[in-house]
């Protein structure tokens, strides 16, 4: 891979990092198909690189989300138990699975993501944007607000400030959320996508966690799930450091920008744009799964 391609790979990863942070998806859902389709990178190497990049994206994004309190730390750790276990199982299956099977599962996940994002968009009325709120200072920092809630009754209760409003919520149907997180983990491990795709709607629709808190909590969680994935792929020799470093550089930049945009832009407005890209990627993956020549796909690079 020459320098120009590596730079382009970094730019694509930055874009995936921005979108991943904004939607709490981790970016892998865009990275893996883009790497395989347009860079000719081996699917397993793309998944391995994506898994590492998702961890990086999560690390960077979470530093911002934790500060804004969009991350619910207790909820994240609780859901993490089954997510990480599922990711380990998924990664072991993913390493052994045929490329066409992975493409088929990826296509199914993309279709699910498209339907889920459109359904959420239809279900949620678009709120009029309020004044932009600055990041909430941590306790002890200058400007720390004096009117924040004291210790909540339910330990899983979360609160944050969004566009000048204090938001307090308590997650519902927690056992179901724990179960679904296991499934998210399996998909994360198998496809290197982080699992936020399942976790964000599960938290927001099933557990009634506000979307920004769901995205913030998911951003934190996907990094942990992807640790399990990255470890399995690393041990299986499916990590290409050249690809990973280019992806990391892009993600470091992209994931710094994503959460900042989230605070200023109503993400719901961008859903149609993201959905269009995902439809294109889903069609490509379906064609790959069916062993049909994808006209816009690049041939694999020889090592």
């Amino acid at each position: 891979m020459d320098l120009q391609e590596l730079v382009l790979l970094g730019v694509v990863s930055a874009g995936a990092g921005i979108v991943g942070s904004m939607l709490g998806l981790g970016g892998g859902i865009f990275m893996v198909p883009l790497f395989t389709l347009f860079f000719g990178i081996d699917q397993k190497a793309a998944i391995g690189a994506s898994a590492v990049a998702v961890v990086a994206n999560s690390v960077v994004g979470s530093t911002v989300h934790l500060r804004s309190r969009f991350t619910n730390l207790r909820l994240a750790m609780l859901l993490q138990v089954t997510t990480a276990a599922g990711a380990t199982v998924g990664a072991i299956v993913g390493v052994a699975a045929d490329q066409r099977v992975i493409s088929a599962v990826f296509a199914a996940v993309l279709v699910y993501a498209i339907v889920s994002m459109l359904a959420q968009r239809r279900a949620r009325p678009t709120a009029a944007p309020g004044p932009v709120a600055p990041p909430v200072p941590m306790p002890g920092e200058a400007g720390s607000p004096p009117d924040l809630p004291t210790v909540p009754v339910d330990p899983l209760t979360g609160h944050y400030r969004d566009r000048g409003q204090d938001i307090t919520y308590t997650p519902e149907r927690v056992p179901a959320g724990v179960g679904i997180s296991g499934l998210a983990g399996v998909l994360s491990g198998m496809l290197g996508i982080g699992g936020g795709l399942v976790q964000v709607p599960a938290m927001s629709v099933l557990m009634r966690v506000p979307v920004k808190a769901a995205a913030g909590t998911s951003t934190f969680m996907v990094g942990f799930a992807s640790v399990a994935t990255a470890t399995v792929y690393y041990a299986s020799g499916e990590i290409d450091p050249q690809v990973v470093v280019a992806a990391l550089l892009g993600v470091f930049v992209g994931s710094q920008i994503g959460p900042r945009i989230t605070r200023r832009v109503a993400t719901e407005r961008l859903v149609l744009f993201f959905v269009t890209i995902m439809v294109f990627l889903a069609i490509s993956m379906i064609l790959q799964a069916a062993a049909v020549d994808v006209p816009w796909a690049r041939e694999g690079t020889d090592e």
Partner: protein
Amino acid sequence: MTSTQAPTDPVMLVYRIARAALVAGFVLAVSLVAIAVALVVITGDPIAGSTMDIGDLPAAVRDGDPSAVAELAILAVVLTPILTTLCVIAGFLRIGDRRYAAISVLVLVVLSASMVVALLR
């Protein structure tokens, strides 16, 4: 000087600790990636397309091999959430939340198990 700050949720201490661990991991990983890229420019050696044996890593890093430093950066990224989990456990224990400290230990056990499983395969 008197403090007028109202009492806040003690879990915010855990947030601060978790954030500090993530920032530390991020800074380390970025530094290593930057060093790897600088070594590529200086030595003219590209980053390899496959990982090396983990036992050979320390010597290769000492020799200024960009691939080894890049691999170290990858490991730094992957280990950051594990470091964060350790810090979260310490944070929950510090605020007396034993239940969530135990849950976080469980997360650490699962992540460690994934590493063991991966290395045994």
